[in-house]
């Protein structure tokens, strides 16, 4: 199932200018597309639009079209769309329902809301927990987990609804290095399982690891787009306010010092 955004523009209610302009984006099965850009570039807005929350919940006006396998989703209610496109946010605490006594119930919250048959809820919940590698947390109180663990629980909650696509808005923004590693590993695992993911992320090192393509936004427009290696090595990246991944910075520093970057790579295996 392919999620396609064609010529999409979006303006928040009351805003004097659009936050997104002429966005063309395709997310086929199994693709991991990274979304980079400076603050206010429109990353979060694109995540909201791609997931259907804007304008359904957020309000505002949208132009262009969003389709799933060619079918326009404009008229779909959010609960129908959420079975195809899951969205995760920065702050793990706000994504938890706050009403579940255990991680298992928290992860099951989505399918339960959809009135999915009970056996199917249980099966999809166990599967999501296993996929995120957190089945051992099933009995724990979700509000008493670390930030990284809560983010994994939130992602498992999305997976339990078995969406064809996942949209993740800076899922590691509020996490420490250990939490970031947990989430990065989970994304890589999902990608290898064939889930297609649109991930907005400031940490280009993470994008370099998990994304097959990267799109860079600048003032609501696509400024760069292409295969990950190509975009993350583009000299315009820094001008656009995006930090280069550590290997790219290291290579540039090596060149400036008259050292062949290939020798560094060879030295580090």
């Amino acid at each position: 199932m392919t999620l396609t955004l064609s010529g999409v523009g979006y303006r928040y209610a009351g805003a004097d200018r659009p936050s997104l302009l002429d966005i063309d984006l395709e997310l086929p099965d199994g693709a991991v597309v990274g979304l980079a850009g400076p603050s206010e570039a429109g990353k979060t807005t694109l995540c909201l639009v791609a997931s259907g929350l804007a304008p359904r919940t957020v309000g505002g006006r949208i132009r262009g079209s969003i389709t799933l396998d060619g079918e326009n989703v404009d008229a779909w209610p959010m609960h129908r769309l959420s079975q195809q496109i899951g969205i995760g946010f920065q702050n793990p605490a706000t994504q938890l329902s706050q009403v579940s006594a255990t991680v298992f119930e928290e992860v099951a919250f989505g399918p339960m809301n959809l009135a999915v048959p009970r056996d199917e809820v249980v099966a999809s919940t166990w599967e999501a927990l296993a996929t995120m590698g957190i089945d051992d947390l099933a009995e724990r109180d979700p509000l008493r987990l670390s930030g990284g663990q809560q983010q994994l629980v939130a992602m498992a909650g999305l997976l339990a609804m078995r969406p064809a696509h996942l949209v993740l808005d800076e899922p590691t923004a509020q996490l420490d290095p250990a939490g970031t590693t947990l989430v990065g590993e989970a994304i890589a695992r999902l990608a290898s399982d064939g889930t297609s993911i649109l991930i907005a992320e400031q940490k280009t090192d993470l994008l370099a690891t998990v994304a097959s393509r990267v799109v860079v936004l600048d003032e609501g427009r696509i400024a760069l787009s292409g295969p990950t290696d190509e975009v993350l090595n583009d000299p315009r990246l820094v001008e656009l306010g995006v930090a280069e991944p550590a290997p790219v910075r290291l290579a540039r520093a090596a060149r400036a010092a008259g050292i062949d970057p290939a020798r560094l790579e060879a030295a580090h295996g």
Partner: protein
Amino acid sequence: MAGGDRLNAGPISTQSRRSIPDFLGRPGPSAYHRLNPLTKAALATVTAIAAVVLGGLIGPIALVVAAVGVPALVAGVLGRLVRTSLLLSLPIALSAFLVNLFFFPGAERVLLRVGPITATAEGLAFALEILARILAISGAVTLFYLTTRPADLVVDLERRGVSRRIGFVTNASVQTVPAMVERAAQITAAQRARGLDTEGSVWRRARGIIPIVGPVILGSIAEVEERTMALEARGFTRPGRRTLLWSPPDSRAQSVLRWTLLAALVALIVLRLTGVVA
């Protein structure tokens, strides 16, 4: 479940289908914990209202002993109940006690004079009655809180057809309190690190509250939008009933008990209104 949706075949790993985990709805540690949440809610509500309706001193004290103390002993939470209940009720109980003791209107029998204010016997009697009612109410509420998980009550109400939104709002409100306390602690630490004085005289402490309360409230409001979107994205606004994985056990005897409690409360109110019970 009829009318429910079906999930995609899904791209996630296929694991063997496993059953509902046995830790869901695990029975509580005592017979009182294991009562249906609605039964415990009925006991707490009837105790609190009856304490007010009964009036006097003996009635509320009997309620504190029989409907709060004994069940708390059975549930093994007596110590925590006393601490929590006093913590909850002490400020209001103390102020109500002092106001009635010293400023009871029309009182004549003087017990003690402290400068311009006078403690009276009528004031003392009424203050003790108020104290007994407050203790009965706070004790009943605390007993319910200590022996019932909010999520269990919500599931039980939902099973009985109450809107999941009502249950969600109630439960989320309860759960938000510790989250806000934690946020307040973080903001206090951050503000103190930047030189805010939150210790010393009462005036200094009062001044120190303002830079903490603002961020706590504004931060909570700012999170509301993201919480709303997260709920939308998880199908919360789908119309109709949702699937429940389990529900707290109930019994015919408990149902009879609830109706009996309700009938007794109604009878008590009628008797009080008609003057049969003074």
